[in-house]
């Protein structure tokens, strides 16, 4: 701990009142403090911290108003997901059929999620209110100064800086990541597929049925899921390690003592990163097209007949190989760039000592460079492995998941789980199945990375450089 912490410790020999936990406040607080859990800001108002108290009270009022006008109903609706189906009603005066609006299950679910999030926020505010009241109570008992609103404002630059700095980012994460995610996770337990599309139809809770259909043997879904999962893992392993190894070798090759024009070589490879990835991917797709330049060259060289073409993206096995090779083309310069700096940090003494002991270049690579790089790059490798499992762009822009096959449920032979997810949601509108795949991908990634990431030095010892 640094100097700053020591300084505050001298000022307040005991714990600061604001360090108290919610449980402690509930146990040791007086009536006023405990009541603050129900009437927000009561303790602050009693302690003459008017602005703080009124803010708490306003939060509570807003929440109650929301629940009465809208929230309570939406929670009830969420349990049923709607009961009234849209019906056709004959309008006699116009002589036509009209649609009588029914319940919209999707909106019910969405509003339900939002209400739950708001409720959690209110619970959090209640806890904060009680903590704040307890803090005031303790300060009063000990005869300490009770912070005024101006003090609160000042603390924003000091010990409460994180609340201000994190407020907007967290709000953004809440709206654009957490709420949608919770919504989609819940969808996995419903029957929201192409046959149950609101507003025309209702969908409902089905429990674990979707998971069962996806994993149980025999169904067409399972016959798609397992092969697609297998290819996803194969792809991730190959894509990650091929780029890592080749990129590192390339960096070594460029950094060799004997290599001239180092900057020039680096530039030649970096050029391909500088181009936006979808441009290089789309061009690669046309280059390897049945009539694209690669086939044209092969025809002119006489490797294949003038009307034949190598099915780079239409033969399942060849498509997989092509994609991995193109991915090497894309990924190697990245690794080359990021490893260059680290390679230069390897202590030269290690190499010199190895040379004196008579080690050859391959042995030096295996015994010094590779272990060192693996040590430094492990977190990086894990992120790129998970990134590759979720690598949508490469597959989608190159092969689009094709070649398609009748054996699969709306998936192609090179579809990864994520691109299959895309097809299921965007083209097929089986949102529940898409959500199931998303959850399964998450489970795979979570187990993989929690097992490995937590063991790495950079997670355990994040303060090593401070």
């Amino acid at each position, binding site marked *: 701990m640094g100097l*700053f912490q020591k300084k505050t410790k001298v000022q307040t020999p005991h714990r600061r009142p604001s360090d108290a936990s919610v449980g402690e406040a509930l146990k040791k607080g007086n009536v006023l403090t405990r009541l603050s859990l129900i009437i927000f800001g009561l303790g602050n108002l009693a302690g003459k911290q008017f602005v703080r108290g009124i803010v708490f009270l306003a939060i509570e009022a807003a929440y109650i108003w929301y629940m009465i006008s809208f929230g309570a109903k939406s929670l009830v609706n969420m349990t049923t997901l709607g009961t009234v189906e849209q019906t056709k009603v004959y309008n006699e005066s116009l002589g036509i059929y009209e649609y009588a609006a029914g319940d919209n299950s999707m909106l019910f679910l969405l509003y339900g999620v939002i209400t739950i999030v708001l409720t959690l926020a209110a619970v959090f505010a209640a806890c904060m209110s009680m903590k704040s009241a307890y803090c005031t109570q303790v300060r009063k008992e000990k005869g300490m100064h009770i912070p005024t609103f101006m003090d609160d404002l000042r603390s924003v630059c000091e010990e409460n800086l994180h609340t201000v700095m994190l407020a907007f980012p967290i709000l953004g994460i809440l709206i654009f990541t957490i709420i*949608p*995610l919770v919504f989609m996770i819940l969808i996995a337990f419903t029957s929201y597929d192409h046959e149950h599309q609101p507003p025309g139809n209702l969908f409902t809770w089905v429990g674990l049925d979707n998971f069962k259909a996806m994993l149980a043997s025999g169904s067409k879904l399972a016959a798609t899921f397992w092969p697609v999962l297998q290819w996803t893992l194969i792809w991730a392993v190959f894509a990650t390690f091929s780029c890592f190894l080749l990129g590192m070798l390339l960096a070594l090759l460029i950094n060799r003592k004997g290599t001239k024009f180092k900057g020039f070589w680096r530039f*030649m490879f970096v050029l391909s990163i500088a*181009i936006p990835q979808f441009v290089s991917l789309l061009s690669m797709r046309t280059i390897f097209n049945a009539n694209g330049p690669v086939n044209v060259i092969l025809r002119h060289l006489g490797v294949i007949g003038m009307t034949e073409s190598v099915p780079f993206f239409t033969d399942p096995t060849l498509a997989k190989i092509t994609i991995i090779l193109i991915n090497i083309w894309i990924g190697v310069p990245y690794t080359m*760039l990021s490893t260059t700096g680290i390679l230069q940090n390897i202590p030269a003494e290690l190499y010199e000592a190895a040379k004196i002991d008579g080690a050859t270049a391959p042995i030096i690579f295996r015994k010094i460079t590779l272990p060192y790089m693996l040590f430094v790059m492990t977190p990086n490798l894990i992120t790129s492995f998970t990134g590759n499992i979720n690598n949508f762009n490469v597959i989608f822009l190159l092969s689009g998941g094709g070649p398609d096959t009748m054996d699969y449920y709306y998936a192609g032979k090179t579809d990864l789980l994520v691109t299959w997810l895309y097809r299921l949601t965007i083209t097929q509108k089986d949102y529940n199945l898409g959500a199931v795949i998303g959850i399964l991908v998450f489970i795979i990634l979570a187990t993989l990375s929690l097992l490995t990431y937590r063991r790495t030095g950079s997670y355990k010892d994040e303060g090593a450089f401070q």
Partner: protein
Amino acid sequence: MKAKRAIVNTLCHILLAVLSIIWVLPIFYVILTSFRKESGSYKSYIWPRGFTLDNYKNLFQPTSQINFGRWFLNTLIIALISTVIAAFFVLCVSYCMSRLRFKMRKPFMNIALILGMFPGFMSMIAIYYILKGLGMLETGLLKQIALIMVYSGGAGLGFYMAKGFFDTIPRTIDEAAYIDGATKWDTFTKITIPLSKPIITYTLITTFMGPWVDYIFAKVIMGQDTKYYTIAIGLWTMLEKEYVETFYTQFYAGCVLISIPISILFLLTQRCYVEGVSGAVKG
């Protein structure tokens, strides 16, 4: 010994030359085709029969489906605004995680790790409906604002890189500032930020590139509103079956045009990228 080293050196250079040809050839092909005179898509030869600048000129003659100049501006504006917001978010969060100590710090970092493991666009449909519920998908302009919100909203989660960089700035510098009476906010703006140019540039570039490269979100949000397309969806449209015969060469011209500014930007800041990745600030 000397002769052997010379041979190894030559071999290495030859290998490098072959490899760089492989890496540059596709780029060369893109540029070549962008100047090709003959229209139509795939040809049975590589070297164009004639060269022309028309592909570039035609790009800026808006037709009903293709409006390259407009797309370029759309993307530029969206990229600029979301870069500023996203970079601010990322820097704030990374600073808090690296320098400030508070109760929710570890839980927040773990939550961020967990959220990062869900496939990003699994929630796309939900985001679409949330935006629709907010009334953000009514007009093209609102859709663009929605797109900015989508690109920058969750940006705070991508703090790991910058946090790692902040971690390497010695704490003693901060402490010296506290002794001189600086608040934590002062330390952030006057010490950490100026010391972190590489990582800031890195953050700025990566977020700036996002909108140029993103296809999926843009497509889902924009739908059929061709006028408000970003470059990525626009170029993708050119390769669709009904357009590819007409716009094949123009597609390449468009690719070259947007690659130029982005690659210049990238090459200029390559140094920051390397420094940012290896996270070395010399206190």
